[in-house]
């Protein structure tokens, strides 16, 4: 038995998953990315469904069963829809902060409640990151996309990916520091 990437499709013998199976296997990843962009669950759900609608209707699709291509392709569609909608509305819920010094200190009541680092605290910290860094953290550290795949999704150079990722992690480090983030590893 072989596990096909992060597509979520289990292969046995010579069985090749269909395109439908592959796109369905990306659901959790896409939802996670949609949430990281939208914040609101309802908005993320709407974005996710629109992504699937467009992906299924696309004339040119990646080769079926190639999860390495399908997932970044779906991410790109999702991000383009989100980006266009954001431009259409001409409003931004969040700004693309690039300087970790601008991050609010993690002394909010929710985080300060406990000194013990909890999964919920990591989530809260990631959620509090500026969008440009948050999506990097989600794509790289949660969804395990490579630099080149992220660059393809964002349509930017790999250097930009690395730079934003570094800043996002630095900001995250600041946010998690008071909670003793090393404990998560133990």
């Amino acid at each position, binding site marked *: 038995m072989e596990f096909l990437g992060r597509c979520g499709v289990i292969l046995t013998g010579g069985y090749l998953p269909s395109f*439908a199976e592959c796109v369905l296997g990306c*659901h*959790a990843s896409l939802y996670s990315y949609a949430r990281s962009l939208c914040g609101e669950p309802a908005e993320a759900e709407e974005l*996710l469904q629109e992504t699937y609608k467009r992906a299924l209707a696309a004339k040119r699709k990646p080769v079926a069963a190639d999860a390495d291509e399908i997932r970044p392709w779906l991410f790109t569609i999702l991000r383009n829809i989100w980006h266009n909608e954001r431009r259409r509305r001409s409003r931004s819920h969040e700004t693309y902060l690039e300087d970790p010094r601008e991050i609010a200190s993690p002394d909010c009541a929710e985080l300060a409640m406990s000194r013990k680092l909890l*999964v919920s605290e*990591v*989530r809260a910290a990631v959620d509090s990151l500026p969008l440009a860094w948050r999506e990097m953290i989600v794509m790289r550290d949660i969804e395990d996309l490579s630099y080149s795949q992220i660059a393809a999704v964002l349509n930017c150079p790999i250097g930009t990916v690395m730079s934003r990722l570094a800043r996002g992690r630095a900001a995250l480090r600041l946010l998690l520091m008071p909670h003793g983030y*090393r404990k998560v590893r133990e």
Partner: protein
Amino acid sequence: MTDCREFRPRIVLYVDREMTGPEALRFEAHLMECASCRHAYDDLRGVVDAVRGSGPLYEVPDQSYSTVRKMVADWDRRQKRWRWMPLAVAAAVLLASGAILWISATRSGYEKFAVRAHRNFTRGAFPLDIASSRPQAVSEWLEPRVPFHLTLPNYPEGGPKRYALAGARLMQYRGEDVAYLAYEMDGKPISLLISSSSRVAPSGGENYQAGGLTFYFSSEQGLRTITWKDKGLTYAQVSDLDVKGAESCAICHGAEGEHRKFEGLGKRM
């Protein structure tokens, strides 16, 4: 120190598995020796592992998966339905092509059959069942043998006609009886085949309309073939007469009264 300057910026590549194998081995060797780089590595690793270890950041609602699954399943069903469409179209095209070829072969086969009969007759491999120059005798011989009524015109001797009847025989074409009539003009043989089969149709390269009939002309290896249909009978005339197109009709039907039918032909030539 030199190593640190080289390796420190690459810590992130190692953590993110963006290093090649040999590169990673060199980096690991340096990490074993360098406490400062190891500290930087642990620092970054701690942040990354904290995020990676936090599992899915967002709980996926069951409803979301159900909705998407239905959407994908509907699409997949439609695809499977349409997947047969190219095959169906290909099959339809194949059938249509086959039908056209079959019809074409059926129709064009008659003139080829007539040419073969003519060749066999001219080289003596095709004896006549009745050898007679009298149209009435040939008509009487054919009458009970063919599935149609046939009365050969009794052209007067010494008239404007230069051709003469030589005889006739029965032939089979696609399982039906066909009358083969042999004529001669200026020492050259002329074959005339007559069929009443509905599956036989006149065909040829050029066609001329005259006297309410359509004549098809074709030429093959020096032999000229004319096919036409009149009153339910299909005729095929083959000869090597040195005439073109409709001229060959006018040679035989040059008599008064017959000219009417071929006036149009003469104008087209």
